[in-house]
């Protein structure tokens, strides 16, 4: 697998994703500059977390006008794999690659903590190494992760099994007490209908090594690497 990590002005988890893909997973990994239009033949594009354009206006609202985003839209349209983490998820919704929008947390505050996630769909290229219904611990760090979509949109997401991760308690129950930001249906991550574009608020790259609090994020990267054909 060859992976590309997009760098917008203000991206700050770009190095983190690069490190995990390259050194932990062993993928051939490159940075993709937002002003460029050449995807350098990658199999996976990652929109990393951070504060593209300072998160001014709305998170991801300005980044979507970067030249590289058009290329990624075409790439995804042709079945290419795209992963958006945190700010990257916001770029995906703003640019229309995923439905819905991310609003301010209901607490109105930035929140950084480990949360429980239930893996609701393991039939995606990104989650095939998890067990169905498994509860994993992966950290969040955001002020605008409150997922919103209108009623029809939600129904369509549910009908197509597009919800991949939900905030839940230790037993895997997705109730309001374990919802850190007010997301509709405790939604933490979704895929598009075709399953090749995943957006999620939690940061799997922050828990992909043995020295971290958990190693639950590792399997997401390993899933997609395996799906695409592994790393040399």
């Amino acid at each position, binding site marked *: 697998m060859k992976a590309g990590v997009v760098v917008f002005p203000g991206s*700050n988890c770009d190095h983190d994703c690069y490190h995990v893909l390259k050194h932990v997973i062993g993928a051939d990994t490159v940075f993709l500059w937002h002003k460029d239009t050449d995807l350098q033949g990658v199999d996976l594009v990652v929109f990393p977390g951070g*504060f593209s354009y*300072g*998160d001014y206006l709305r998170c991801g609202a300005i980044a979507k006008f970067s030249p590289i985003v058009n290329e990624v839209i075409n790439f995804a349209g042709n079945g290419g794999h795209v992963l958006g983490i945190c700010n990257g998820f916001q770029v995906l919704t703003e640019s229309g690659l995923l439905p819905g929008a991310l609003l301010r947390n209901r607490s109105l505050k930035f*929140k*950084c903590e480990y949360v429980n996630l239930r893996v609701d769909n393991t039939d995606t290229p990104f989650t095939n190494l998890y067990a169905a219904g498994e509860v994993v611990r992966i*950290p969040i760090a955001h002020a605008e992760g409150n997922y919103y979509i209108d009623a029809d949109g939600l129904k369509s997401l549910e009908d197509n099994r597009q919800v991949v991760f939900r905030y839940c308690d230790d037993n895997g129950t997705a109730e309001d007490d374990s919802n850190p930001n007010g997301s509709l249906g405790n939604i933490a991550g979704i895929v598009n209908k075709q399953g090749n574009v995943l957006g999620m608020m939690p940061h799997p790259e922050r828990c992909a090594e043995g*020295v971290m609090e958990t190693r639950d994020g590792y399997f997401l990267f390993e899933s997609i690497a395996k799906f695409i054909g592994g790393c040399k």
Partner: protein
Amino acid sequence: MSVYEKFGFPEVTAEAAKGMGLSAEEFAGVKKLLGRTPNYIELGVISSMYSEHCSYKSSRVHLAKFPTKAPWVVQGPGENAGIIEVDNDGLCVCFKVESHNHPSFIEPFQGAATGVGGILRDVFTMGARPVAAMNSLRFGKLDKPKNRQIFEGVVAGISHYGNCFGVPTVGGEVYFNSCYDGNPLVNAFALGVVRKENIYLAKAEGLGNPVIYVGAKTGRDGIHGATMASEEFNENSEAKRPNVQIGDPFKEKLLLEACLELMKTDFIVGIQDMGAAGLTSSSFEMASKSGSGVRLDLDRVPMREKGMNPYEIMLSESQERMLMVAKKGYEDKVKEIFDKWDLDAVVIGEVTDDGYVRLFWEGEEVAALEAAPLADEAPKYNRPYSRPDYMDELQRLPKVDAPANLQKVLETLLANETIASKRWVWEQYDHMVRVGTVQLPGSDAAVIRLNESEKGVAISSDCNSRFCLLNPFEGGKAAIAESARNVAVSGARPRAFTNCLNFGNPEKPEIMWQFVSAVEGMAEAAKVLETPAISGNVSLYNETEGKPVHPTPTVVMVGVFDDVTKRIGSYFKSMESAVYLLGE
């Protein structure tokens, strides 16, 4: 028409000097040093250089008591930040703590945010990439709505700046005491990684080399902020208030990336942050350190507002700006890198060799001051100090009977805002970005692995100011000892510290006594532990209406690991583990 007529600057008198914070003796000294009366622009420049904040005039003689050397110290006090070597292989960390107390009282959110911005710039101007931030905070008790508002604003400001910039804020301290009612303390710390051979210093060398201004445009922000930070608060402070500085962490992030990219080349000679007293202190420090001189064409400075004059430009404290000296002929290469990051980089002058900082406006020389005397020979005071009588009173502690209900006592203690969990604070900080935080907040020290290797550092910030009030010498010692212990129990070897000395008005002998005692206590402990001071900051005049804060010498200790996977968290790991008590 000359600039002086055009802008209608007032006449320079002892009165005008006083308005800018210069005493009558200092003004007389300036005239003697120059052999003439300074003009208005020069007076503004000199008064900010002579402010307590920039000159350390009350503290310098005592700061010399700190040990500052050890084999692992690469850069001691005197630069933007200090540097130690982590291993014997050139891997270094660069760190410093700095106060932003006065601005945080005026506007808690922006004051704290710009404090974080300033300390981050101090670290990355040295060539180091910031990898951890901490903050040491003191507020009045939370039952007063005003204190609550300041507390919430400060935490939100730190969160806003650090999170957006992309540095993990990994720890700190929060204390509440009514002595901080009108005078909260906000001390911000940052630590960065750099290889020994890639360190940059604030130098202006090489006759004819261009002086380049980079970063945000200059506005009328915080003019005379440094002078204001060197005075007590009173009801007039409100009226003197300059435009509050607004932090732009996004721009600073771009500045970081552009600077680090530039530093990989050999296009530049020296670089300096424009912090307190902005262009003034950066140009004088660079020129005096190199024994060169600098010519600046102030009308070329990128300006944000219309009609700004040279005086305002020299004294503006607009954020997210740097001054650098490049090699002649490489101007376009520098510009190219800054263009890539959508930032301004403008040649505003050049290095000279006559020892003067000369300021020009549309071709006319509007100020000429010799750099070295002003930067190095600012006034230095050995202010009188004596133990105040109330210390006797303080020593007579009331007799306390053993409480009957210990359960109740424990509950009361745990419910105390100073003792209670600080989760509410650190959850608002991104403490995991950069995938280096291998000991999360909630333990005695934060542990950061460096460059995704097994090398790392432990960092702890400590100061018990009530203890310092009761006995400043022992309190100062204890601050060093506690921070070193916190680092040691995490599994690291304490190596060096940085500090921020927050005290009241040094012109009062009892405050000066607290200051001197605390510094001597800290120095003694630091010598014994072989942990030199490599950087620091002094914040005096923390008084409102004559009421000083408790002496608060914040210490941030840094220790090193060969193997961070051996770190130890300070909490019980599993049921039925044995519990040991070590020490006496």
